[in-house]
């Protein structure tokens, strides 16, 4: 029994050591999360050691919202602390909208519609659009998302708005959303905060005439075009461009007839006949014919690829799908080069918004792309 006191002491020491060991260096994950951001720098600074353990609080997002409103509502310019609180709150609201989306609870459309008013918070607007995409028949969507698609400074907001607009069944505005989508396949969109690109630097050098009073119209922008709109009629607009450029305004049928050749790879008929002869000889075991046929085949392949590259860069590529739904469109060729339409003015009506659209299009073989990685060129 005399050993008991010392045994207890050892036990207590061991227990204390165990507890200390399990707690030492403990730190909230978030603390280092934030500290860690600097560690990703190419030339990292010395990192501070682990801070003493600080317990996380039990406050929630509602408390955060209340504190943010209390501290920041009166500010006219954002302080750093308020910008930080706002960031935390934006993440909370975005997360909750995502939860609402997953729940598929239609009542959530009420908050989602309200969230569309926060036009300068692209993460929130995009999350709200995702909720509404589940219920595109919700009244009031079109009125809210149309201006966002036309004017938002954020590419993600324009994209989500166009997506939502295009899904509204029975709405004439769906066509405007579809047009935006057809034109923006190559739009860079790295983060929700990526701003919609400005006019391309070389736009002025393209030399398109400026239609009086026309306003920038983002749905008709693309990697090879800039969009404008006006309240004037298609007839008046196309006549103005035709006179200014001294080039006839073509109807859809006339344009299709002209471009039919460009839309089909040119095949040398004499070479095709030669190929047929060679194949017949090759079947009979003529090795010389096999070699020549192989060479000819490679030549066809090379020509085909060159045609594909040329088509990828062309105005035809952009207009192929789009012009199908626009029977009243007019086409004015502004410039031709080496058999290509190098610059084109594409004019069409959009009755849903009572506007005439002017899409100024160029061939990427002749001019740089407005945005995004340019497709391969022939040069």
């Amino acid at each position, binding site marked *: 029994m005399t050993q008991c006191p010392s045994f207890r002491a050892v036990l207590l020491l*061991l227990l204390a050591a165990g507890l200390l060991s399990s707690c030492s260096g403990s730190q909230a994950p978030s603390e280092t999360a934030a500290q860690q951001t600097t560690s990703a720098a190419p030339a990292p600074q010395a990192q501070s050691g682990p801070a003493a353990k600080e317990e996380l609080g039990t406050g929630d997002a509602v408390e955060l919202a209340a504190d943010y409103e209390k501290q920041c509502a009166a*500010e006219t310019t954002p302080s750093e602390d308020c910008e930080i609180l706002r960031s935390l709150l934006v993440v909370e609201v975005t997360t909750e909208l995502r939860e609402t989306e997953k729940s598929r609870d239609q009542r959530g459309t009420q908050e989602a519609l309200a969230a569309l008013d926060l036009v300068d918070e692209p993460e929130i607007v995009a999350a709200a659009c995702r909720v509404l995409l589940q219920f595109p028949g919700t009244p009031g969507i079109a009125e809210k998302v149309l201006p966002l698609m036309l004017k938002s400074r954020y590419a993600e907001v324009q994209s989500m708005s166009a997506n939502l607009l295009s899904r509204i069944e029975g709405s004439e505005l769906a066509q405007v959303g579809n047009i935006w989508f057809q034109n923006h396949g190559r739009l860079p969109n790295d983060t929700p905060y990526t701003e919609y690109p400005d006019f391309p630097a070389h736009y002025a050098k393209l030399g398109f005439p400026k239609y009086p009073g026309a306003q920038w119209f983002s749905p008709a922008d693309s990697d090879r075009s800039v969009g404008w709109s006006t309240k004037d009629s298609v007839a008046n607009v196309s006549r103005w461009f035709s006179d200014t450029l001294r080039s006839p305004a073509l109807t859809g049928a006339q344009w299709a007839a002209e471009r039919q050749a460009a839309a089909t790879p040119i095949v040398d008929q004499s070479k095709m006949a030669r190929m047929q002869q060679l194949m017949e000889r090759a079947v009979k075991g003529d090795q010389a014919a096999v070699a020549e046929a192989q060479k000819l085949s490679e030549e066809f392949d090379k020509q085909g690829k060159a045609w594909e590259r040329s088509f990828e860069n062309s105005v035809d590529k952009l207009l192929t799908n789009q012009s199908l739904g626009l029977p009243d469109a007019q086409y004015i060729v502004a410039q031709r080069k080496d058999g290509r339409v190098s610059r084109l003015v594409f004019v069409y009506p959009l009755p849903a918004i009572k506007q005439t659209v002017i899409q100024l299009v160029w061939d990427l073989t002749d001019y740089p792309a407005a945005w995004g990685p340019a497709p391969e060129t022939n040069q």
Partner: protein
Amino acid sequence: MKRVALSVALLLVWLAPKLESTAIACLSRNPCKQPPCELFYELKIMKAMARLWSLPVLRNEQDSNRVTAKITKLSKKYAKCPANYFYQPPPIFTLGPGSKCDIVYPPGTSSLDQVLASTNTCAEFVHGRFKEIEQARLFCLSNSDLRGPLPEGLFRMQMRLTIQTYTEFLESELGRFLSSCAPSATTSRRVTAAGLQALRKASYKKRMEWADRLVKEVAQ
């Protein structure tokens, strides 16, 4: 007999911290088991950092350190986490000096496995942090011909990309939980409404001017 039992108990107490010194998978195989709140907290604070790096608020390493300290301090209160003594911080990976951009492991370790074996934290954090530093290494290598500190635009892009790598990794890990378990919208709606109200009231003049213009255009 009592002494043997006591010795075993002592041994267990002694071993316990050592056994815990290993990163554990915080996400259960059961997709509907609620992950630890720290996982969500970590994700949210990093997403807030990503937002700040997307705005012209932060520009350089000094801004980063200052705002990092502030966000850590400000956000703790709203973590909605009960006290927890198990977690250690995610490890700190860094890049070595020079153009080689080598990954420097936390002190006492020289591989990812060793870091996982020696850190009391969610294994998801360790893997995420490692992916983040790998992304930073790629960025470093692609800019290794630059001398001196990175220009502001590149520095901001680097921070965005690396943080995004980390948050996307955590989100993908959480994906099974998030997609499998349909939540109730009631709480989400309440929080969304409160958040929207606060954000609207504290929208700054410049922001509101733009919004007002849009509203007028719609009315026309």
